[in-house]
Each structure stands twice: as structure tokens, then as C-alpha cells.
């Protein structure tokens, strides 16, 4: 085998090994690298009340209730599993926060199982459309 073929084999083997190592490491990280827990994740993972955590999912259409005081709101977060989480929040939500859209809530669970959010982030989906081409009401299909 000529020297440059040897070097080529070495480089290819090295790249392959590193790629496999990285993929294994990422697989090991998959739970901890998640930015938030979806309602489906909460079936298998119990989060004690009061512990700081992020949950994320879809704001269920029709679930958003704004309190008369103008700064409190509550809504229900769901995903493609039957499980849902009721969330309450006091403050100004981001512009893109709306029903049928993705949301990430930072906060903790109250003892009664309601999630009290200290901060809300709106998740944007992958769809880009001009206003005149939106026929139906906004609905995000994918959770991610």
C-alpha cells in the first residue's frame, strides 16, 4: 500500500470513529440536552412541586383565559399524547404567543399540579407564509 493510500485510510477510519463516538455521546445526552419537557415526557418523569423546570408544547385551542386584571392568564399545554398540563402566568407574553402555537414555560409545579410560569417563550414553527395566503386559523402541526 502506498503511503498516501495509507494516510487516506487512516483519515477515513479516524473520521468514522469520531462520528460514531459523537453520535453515541449525543444519544447519551438526549434527555439532558432537551430544553424543555413535553406533557408526554412528564408521564415517565415526575417533577416534584417547587422544582424549577421548563415545560413546552402546544397551547390547546380554546383553553386560553385572560383574567379581568389584564396581566394574569391561564391556558392548557398539550402535545400528541393525551396528557395535558394547566399553566398560569402573570405578565406580558411574547407577541407570537397564541392558541394553537408552541410555547415554552419556565417555572415550577404548584402542589395542586398546576404549572406556575415565571416566564413564557413563544416557539416559532417552520412555516413561513404571507398574510393573504393563510386560509384557516393558525395551527402548528409539529411540536418540535
Amino acid at each position, binding site marked *: 500500500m502506498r503511503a*498516501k493510500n495509507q494516510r487516506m485510510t487512516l483519515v477515513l477510519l479516524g473520521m468514522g470513529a*469520531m462520528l460514531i463516538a459523537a453520535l453515541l455521546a449525543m444519544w447519551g445526552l438526549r434527555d439532558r440536552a432537551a430544553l424543555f419537557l413535553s406533557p408526554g415526557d412528564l408521564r415517565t418523569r415526575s417533577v416534584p412541586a417547587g422544582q424549577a423546570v421548563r415545560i413546552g408544547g402546544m397551547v390547546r385551542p380554546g383553553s386560553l383565559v385572560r383574567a379581568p386584571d389584564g396581566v394574569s392568564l391561564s391556558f392548557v399545554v398539550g402535545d400528541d399524547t393525551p396528557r395535558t398540563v394547566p399553566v398560569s402566568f402573570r405578565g406580558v407574553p411574547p407577541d407570537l404567543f397564541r392558541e394553537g402555537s408552541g410555547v415554552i414555560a419556565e417555572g415550577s409545579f404548584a402542589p395542586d399540579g398546576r404549572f406556575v410560569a415565571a416566564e413564557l*417563550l413563544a*416557539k*416559532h414553527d417552520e412555516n413561513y*407564509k404571507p398574510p393573504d*395566503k393563510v386560509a384557516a386559523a393558525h395551527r402548528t402541526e409539529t411540536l418540535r
Partner: protein
Amino acid sequence: MHALANPARFLSFARPLTPWLGWGGAALLGASLFGGLFLSPRDYLQGETVRIMYVHVPTAWLGMGGWAALAAASASHLVWRHTLAGIAARAIAVPGAVMTALALATGAIWGRPTWGTWWEWDGRLTSMLLLFFLYCGYLALNAAERERGGEAKLSAIFGLVGAVNLPVIHFSVIWWNTLHQPPSLTTEGSAIDASIAWPLLGSTIGFTLLFAAIVLMRMRAILGQARFAARLRRAAA
């Protein structure tokens, strides 16, 4: 490809190519960004902030594509010992780092009005920040190696190792729950309406051509330095 490894032959086509790529890229970029700012419609949800995509997506693509090219040049430097490949890798590093930094900055500017935060340590944002640090590490390592007059073999290996981060960046939004949205352009089609997508296509190609021109300019500068040093030595001898 091996014919290009000869610096004289490389220069004979790089010299006329540089202005074509530079002016062509700048013109296409200018036209596309004008279209993106004033002609294309706003998004039904994001409003006007969708226009940030026309600078964010090309810079992110070049930050990642830059490292892919740097890794390919490093591999060819290691396997075939082409000096020109080492020069190409070195010429890509600074523009690649600038593009990655711009992708991070424009992403933060988009995130504030859209998500409600400048920064969040999610998988996509963190792996992209890592790419920026990899560029910085490459530049430092390469400078140190050149100072000692070596072949820059370690930086070439570093370029290959760093390429492992590229699939992580790409798949981060699919593997993990992230704040960043999944890709809009996939093999199954585009989730971006055509009226919004055309300036994006133009600005991506324009930025890429301009990036290629910048890399060629930097390679020509490095070759010029080498010629200067060689002639100086010959004159002294």
C-alpha cells in the same frame, strides 16, 4: 483536482475568477436583499422580522459550509500533502468565523421579538456557539503552528475533528426539544411560501459567491506572502 494543487496553475484561474465571483455575488446579494426588504411580503405570524431570515440563513449556512470546506481541505492536506490545501483551510477560517458570529448575532436579534428572548441554551444555539469557538481554536492553533514553521498538521487534524459538530448542529432540532424551529427546507419540500423564499435563494447564492471571492483573495494574499519571502531569500543568497 490535483492539477489545482499547483500554485501557478491555481493562480492562473483564481486571478480572473476573483472579480467575477466578487462582483457577481455582491450584485446578486444587493438585489436579493432589496427584494427581501421591500418587495417580499411580511409573514402572517412574525410580521416584518421574517426579513432577518434573508441575512440569518445565508450566514448560518456559510458558517457551517465554511467548516465543511475547511475540513475537506484539511483532509486533502493530510492525505496528499498539498500545500495549497493547507492554505485554503487557513484562508477559510476567518471568513467562516465571521459568518458564524453573524448567524449568532442575527439569530439573537430575531429571537428577541419572536421568541421573547435573545438567547437560550438550547441544542441548536449551543452547538452553533461551539462552532464559533472551534473557528477561534483553529485560528489560534494554526497561528502557533506557523510561528514554529511547521506544516500545520495539528490544525488540519483539528479541522477534521471539529467537523463532527456539523451533523450535531444540523440534527439538534430533530434530536432534542429545542427553542429553534426545525428545518423549513427538507427533501420533502419547502414550508416557506414561494413569495418569501425567492429572496432567500438569491441572498444565499449571493453570499456564497462573495464568500468564495473572499477566500480566493485571502489565498492569493497568502501565496503572495510566500512568494515575497522566497524572493527575499533568493535576493539575499
